[in-house]
């Protein structure tokens, strides 16, 4: 997408007053929740330092951590698959499904399966894959993508839910949320019971023990991982912790940053398929490790920090840009600051370069990140990559803004030459009001008065004041 399309999306989102009011209400609650839990600044700083160390240890030595994870999983009877691209990962899930003669899948909320467009691949190959997280279920019925990484149906009203349920699952129209929820429960219970394969994401995979951990509140992820005969967990290859002992801290940081809960309703730790004598649980457990650009990110010391991300969504909730435009305007799997940071890295600057401009670099995202990812610095770095011919990001150096390069080199000349600098000010002071309001000035003056340039600079005023002082002495 190009910046012009983004601008159109932005205009549409900004004009949607009800959505903006609702979004503000929701993220304000998320922020309040987080603050309520992490209410001691010193304590929070220490927790973030510790969580940062856990993740930096992992993303700095991913090869050995992944090999250890693979070995631990194998010892537990979990089959590990490696995928270089989203397409490969989706095909692995398809092949597993076919290998057991399956056709129906149930899936719990997972951003990585959005990233690889898993549903599209499976549906194109004759499978039925049902989203089971209530929010995901709703947007799957409507045919949309998640609005927020932890609140996918944030933008949908109860009336819209009622209408889509009436249309797609055949209930009488109601806008009573309790009844709607009960209908979803009834409808999906049958799907859990009959599905061939359950798909989940992964919040933490533990290298030491080969444990797949999933955080959730609804119980659908436990259903997906416990009821069908096959459980497939799909994860970005960075979502690993070294040790089981790392989990308590990381769990608190993830859940607390996301919703302000001390712990999610469920924290499910899958350590393998059913054993002899077990009465339930999947007969097969698979773990799909997805690269899809992550190994490239790991190669650069600064960009590597993007892989520390826990996908908690706190950066979205605190972002003044996300607050104004919401999740869909970005037209990207991951919206908000985390998306701004990772989309151009995963998919390239040609396609997602516009996202790097959608930040005022105010620093709110970096301030709340539970693992201290310096999101603003990485966004700034992407702006460098946009025109850097030797860059580390896909499609670097392709920025068409040659005019901007020229403008900055001219700026550097002016700013290193006091004579030019003062002349520029005087010229602007003389001409300021007469300049046509186009380009940047047009953008500025759409909601602000023109900057008023001063005919005298600071040095002029200082000289005058000192002369006056001397004169009076």
């Amino acid at each position, binding site marked *: 997408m190009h910046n012009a399309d983004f601008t159109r999306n932005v205009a549409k989102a900004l004009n949607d007053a009800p959505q903006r009011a609702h979004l503000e209400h929701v993220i304000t609650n998320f922020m309040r929740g987080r603050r309520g839990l992490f209410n001691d600044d010193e304590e929070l700083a*220490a*927790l973030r*330092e*510790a969580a*940062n*160390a856990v993740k*930096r*240890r992992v*993303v*700095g*030595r991913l*090869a050995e951590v992944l090999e250890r994870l693979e070995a631990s999983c194998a010892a*537990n009877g979990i089959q590990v698959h490696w*995928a*270089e691209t989203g397409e490969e990962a989706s*095909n692995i899930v398809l092949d597993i499904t076919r290998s057991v003669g399956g056709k129906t899948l149930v899936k719990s909320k997972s951003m990585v399966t959005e990233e690889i467009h898993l549903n599209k691949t499976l549906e194109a190959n004759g499978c039925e894959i049902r989203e089971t997280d*209530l929010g995901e279920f*709703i947007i799957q019925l409507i045919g949309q993508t998640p609005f927020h990484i932890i*609140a996918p*149906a*944030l933008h949908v009203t*109860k009336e819209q839910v009622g209408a889509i349920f009436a249309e797609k699952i055949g209930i009488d129209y109601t806008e009573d*949320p*309790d009844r*709607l*929820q009960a209908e979803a*429960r009834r409808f999906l*219970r049958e799907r*859990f019971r009959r599905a061939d394969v359950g798909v989940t994401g992964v919040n933490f995979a533990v290298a*030491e*023990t*080969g*444990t797949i951990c999933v955080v959730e*509140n*609804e*119980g*659908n992820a*436990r*259903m997906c991982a*416990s*009821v069908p005969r096959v459980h497939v967990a799909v994860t970005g290859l960075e979502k690993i912790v070294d040790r*089981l*002992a790392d989990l*308590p801290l990381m*769990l608190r940081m993830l859940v607390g940053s996301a919703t302000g809960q*001390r*712990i999610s309703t*469920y924290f*499910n*730790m899958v*350590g*393998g*398929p059913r054993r002899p004598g*077990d*009465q339930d*649980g999947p007969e097969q457990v698979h773990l799909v*490790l997805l690269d899809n650009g992550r*190994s490239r990110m*790991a*190669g650069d010391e600064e960009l590597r920090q993007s892989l520390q991300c826990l996908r908690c969504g706190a950066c979205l909730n605190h972002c003044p840009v996300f607050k104004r435009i919401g999740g869909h305007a970005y037209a990207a799997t991951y919206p908000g600051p985390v998306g701004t940071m990772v989309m151009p890295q995963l998919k390239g600057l040609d396609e997602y370069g516009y996202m790097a401009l959608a930040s005022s670099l105010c620093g709110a995202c970096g301030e709340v990140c539970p693992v201290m990812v310096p999101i603003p610095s990485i966004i700034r770095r992407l702006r460098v990559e946009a025109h850097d011919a030797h860059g580390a990001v896909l499609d670097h150096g392709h920025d068409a803004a040659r005019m901007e390069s020229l403008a900055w080199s001219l700026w550097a000349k002016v700013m290193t030459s006091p004579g030019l600098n003062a002349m520029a000010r005087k010229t602007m002071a003389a001409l300021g009001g007469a300049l046509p309001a186009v380009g940047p000035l047009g953008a500025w003056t759409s909601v602000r008065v023109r900057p008023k340039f001063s005919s005298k600079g600071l040095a002029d005023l200082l000289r005058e004041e000192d002369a006056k002082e001397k004169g009076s002495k």
Partner: protein
Amino acid sequence: MSNARENILARLRAARAERVPDYIPRWSPAHPEGDELVALAVKHMEATRTLVLRVAPSEIGATVRDLLRQRSVTNLLRAPDTWVGELLDAQWPGDGECELLTWDHAAPDYCRDVLFPEAQASITTVKALVADEGAVVLWPTPSEPRTMSLVPPLHIAAVRVGQILPSLAEAVAAFDWAVNRPNNAVLISGPSRSGDIENTLRIGVHGPMELVVLLVDD
């Protein structure tokens, strides 16, 4: 595609960081003992809309019967070979008002055929209750399988007071968890919940609509 593993690992080996930080040996949540520990556990579990009832072992039967009666529940799945199953069986009145169900290990698919359509409530033991998180820890077993605490609309977790630990971190150490790897473990802090319709919290989506913790004196 078979080369994916080698290709990815080769790139990651080349990408290894020159330095990685040491672990920061930090995070020891509160470590209360005795009554304070119990109070903290109760406070955190109640905050997530869990009903916590403190009972003597001799009161378990009557307490559970009252709970079920108030909710018009007419059956309860329990494992007869657990401590709480034994107490319940001994204390359960034979009036037929509420049937005690037993997971039939010989049935071809008890989970799909009976648990889903019929079970209204279950009672399970727990591995521990972690106070800082405010969650019960379950390590499912053949007699108390994974779905027993998930599918029935009412889940009662029987916790002996001595099973309360200060935190998950201490549970990981106490059970030598990294060595004794269960093939499934789950922490449960309350009833199933969702905020997905207009972002208002509602209880009871896919899992139990209600979680009751029976805190049983040792």
